[in-house]
């Protein structure tokens, strides 16, 4: 696993990913952590397989007792199936996750950690002065789904939006946007179900000041690539599973 510092000005953003030791058939994921003083917040901590390196790596940056909060953008196993293990490691922590998934996410094991439901309209967390916003991104792709926005660092953790299916060892940032769209297109057309939800989200996100857009899979977008992504996504027709032509292509 690799880690990389994304932002360091009063508080820190760190990305963890590109785990070379993960089993081949498991999708590679990016995990994020914000540290502010004695509080650490992990976003989309990942699946069971990624837990050992995650625990080993996050605790190089933050004391284990300072990990007070975690976040799950939605209910997928690659997002939060490690919950049962975090539940042993940080029993006093809180999990912020969509209210609609509580009964589902608890199947991963949540005896000690407190489940804090995020309402459909969103919410936020105050890490001793560093305020992070939970931005609704419903139906992209899960029916209850949130991004995390940091207005000070100008970073948007966008969950599965902006995800790309990358080869192992790819750099953390997009270098050639047009080239990169090839790795995103099928994922967005197939995993994202609704053009209407997409439009909602784009309208909302265009109002935010974003330097880095950080998805849960693949590379991160920096500077103008964020705007490029929004334009590209806007023009993309999503929800293609029932299109026979598409089904044939993916078979």
């Amino acid at each position: 696993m690799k880690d990389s510092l994304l932002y360091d000005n009063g508080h820190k953003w760190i990305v963890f990913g590109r785990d070379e030791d993960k089993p081949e058939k498991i999708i590679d994921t990016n995990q994020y952590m914000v540290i502010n003083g004695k509080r650490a917040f992990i976003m989309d901590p990942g699946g069971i397989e990624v837990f050992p390196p995650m625990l080993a790596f996050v605790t190089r940056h933050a004391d284990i007792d300072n990990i007070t909060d975690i976040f799950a953008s939605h209910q997928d196993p690659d997002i939060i199936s490690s919950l049962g293990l975090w539940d042993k490691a940080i029993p006093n922590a809180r999990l912020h996750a969509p209210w609609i998934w509580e009964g589902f996410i608890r199947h991963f094991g949540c005896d000690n950690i407190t489940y804090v439901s995020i309402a459909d309209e969103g919410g936020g967390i105050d890490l001793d002065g560093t305020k992070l916003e939970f931005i609704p991104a419903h139906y992209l792709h899960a029916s209850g789904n949130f991004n995390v926005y940091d207005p000070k660092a100008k970073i948007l953790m966008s969950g599965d939006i902006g995800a790309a299916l990358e080869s192992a060892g790819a750099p953390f940032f997009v270098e050639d946007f047009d080239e990169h769209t090839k790795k995103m297109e099928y994922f967005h057309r197939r995993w994202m179900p609704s053009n209407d939800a997409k439009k909602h989200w784009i309208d909302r996100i265009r109002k935010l000041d974003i330097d880095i857009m950080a998805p849960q899979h693949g590379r991160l977008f920096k500077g103008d690539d964020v705007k490029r992504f929004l334009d590209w996504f806007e023009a993309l027709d999503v929800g293609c599973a029932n299109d026979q032509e598409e089904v044939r292509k993916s078979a």
Partner: protein
Amino acid sequence: MQKDVEITTPNFVTAATVAAQLHQILSMGEQLQMTALNAAIISARAGEQGKTFGPLTDGINTLAKNIQTLVLDIDNKSVGFSRKSIMEMNHQRQQEAFNKACNLHGEDGPNHNKISILRDKILTDRNNIQQELLGNLSEMGHLMKEISTSLRPTDYLVANCRIEASHITDFCGAFNDVAEMVASTSKQISENIKKSNSLLIQLQETV
């Protein structure tokens, strides 16, 4: 990265096999009850002479009911065992995850002590669960022994049935059939218990 995994039957599967096997005893119990009913009908037809069969019929009925209760009791215990056994498997997985995290973090990592404490706690929890599993198995073993014990009077019941039958010429054959049925069902139950018991011992060794 492909791992070579030796596939062994998980304990909760073996426990379910034991329970399923013992479940067959329930229908054997039903068989015994049918036999008791049959014996009661024959007794009634035998009139005054058949009255001596009353206690025998009751004996078979009680035996059947006792055995069925014991089997259902073992059934519950086996479900409890399976649940705990899955919990133990989870702990094993957790232990492996924390071990790996501990090694990756490194001995000179700032949280090495805290991660080792977590790992050790999971180990202790796992050991406790293993003790509970063993306790659970020994309870199942006791209940199985009770079934065997409750089968003991059948020899006497069968012998008695045969003696009484010899006194009533008209219904001798019918009562001998009853005796035969009880003897063979009881033998089937004993064999079932023997088989289940060897699986139980196997489980005790793998916990």
